[in-house]
């Protein structure tokens, strides 16, 4: 089937989409956007977090067809050209990125948190990121990055 969807502000069209495939597969394999990562495929790890109509979701749990006529923002859509989003910049500066696999999902999820709660408490940050697994950092640097981004926004 064909899926028409707005991705990162641009009208896109994906063809030959299998009816059972996920939004994540369509983004990565058909629309050339490999930023969102594919790991658990069951909504446990958060690596594929994207905005769907401005709400963060696990792209692996959205059927591609459900994105028809919707608006998707991936991690690729957060930066303004070469200028990184403050959340991305803070992740780099705080050393919150090691292998980098979980980073896109964490960046999108943290971005949403700071949009809703400009100055989150530590428990609020932890709760917001509870669905994003990171196996390298031990999370401390990630919390630093979110605090840093909050202080700059």
């Amino acid at each position, binding site marked *: 089937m064909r899926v028409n969807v707005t991705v990162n502000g641009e009208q896109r069209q994906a063809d030959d989409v299998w009816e059972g495939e996920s939004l994540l597969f369509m983004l990565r394999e058909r629309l050339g956007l490999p930023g969102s990562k594919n790991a658990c495929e069951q909504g446990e790890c958060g690596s594929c977090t994207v905005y769907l109509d401005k709400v963060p979701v*696990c792209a692996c749990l959205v059927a591609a067809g*459900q994105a028809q006529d919707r608006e998707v923002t991936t991690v690729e859509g957060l930066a303004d050209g070469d200028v990184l989003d403050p959340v991305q910049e803070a992740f780099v500066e705080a050393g919150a990125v090691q292998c980098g696999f979980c980073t896109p999902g964490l960046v999108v999820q943290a971005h949403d948190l700071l949009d809703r709660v400009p100055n989150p408490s530590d428990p609020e940050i932890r709760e917001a990121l509870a669905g994003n697994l990171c196996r390298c950092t031990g999370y401390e640097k990630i919390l630093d990055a979110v605090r840093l981004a909050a202080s700059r926004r």
Partner: protein
Amino acid sequence: MDFLRPETLAEALELKAARPDAVPIAGGTDVMVEMNYDHRRPSALLDLTRIPELQQWSDGLRVGAGVPYVRIIDELGAQLPGLAMAARTVGSPQIRNRGTVGGNLGAASPAGDTHPVLLASDAVIEVASVRGTRMIPAAEFYLGVKRNALEQDELIVAVHLTPAKGPQQFSKVGTRNAMVIAVCSFGISLFPEENRVGAAVGSAAPTPRRAGEAEQFLASALDFRNPKPLLDSVKREFGELVSQAASPIDDVRGSAAYRKHALAVMARRTLGWAWQELLDGERACA
């Protein structure tokens, strides 16, 4: 495979009647896992996310089956505190942004987080087909492990719940707070004006289940008109009866013995919290 995309409930019911094999999908938090893991290859998916009737609620309360958990937490928490508590324990923020009570009922997993609350608060499930609408009390909805009372041509449309008339509590045991399938869970609702108690267990029997004897014991042991601090013996007996209502199994998440023990503990504690809320309310009114 076909991808069916109805825009109205009427259209969805027509499609479901014509294609009873079509698997309804809303938040996708269960269905897509089965698809991604090759556990399920239905001949069609029936996308319910475009149907406005399912995403709304009206006073009374009739909560559309497609209202995501996050909205129940943020917007219905004052009226449905027990359901909001259970919703808060579902998955992660991303999952709560997508997952729905309708999906919990459709999957009918014994471990579904909202089931004990729906049972303890006398929820009624509204299901519909081209043949008409049925109202099914939650206690009659769960038929077996991942089996519910839906006919092949029916869809879950809404859940009817009365705004809480007394304290409600929910408790769930798992290895961490987030992303946990319940080892076991428990919901309790007090109805002070009716001298009545609702209590139900989750993840501790082939279906979510009301603890009828525990409810009756508590209703007779509690004095709602003149509430006094709870006797330990009442809490203990209540916990024991809740535990007896369960028939859990040993599985990867926990042993049957542990579940029985944990249920008794959760029943005692949630009763204590609910009763304290009632006492505090009395004091505030005095």
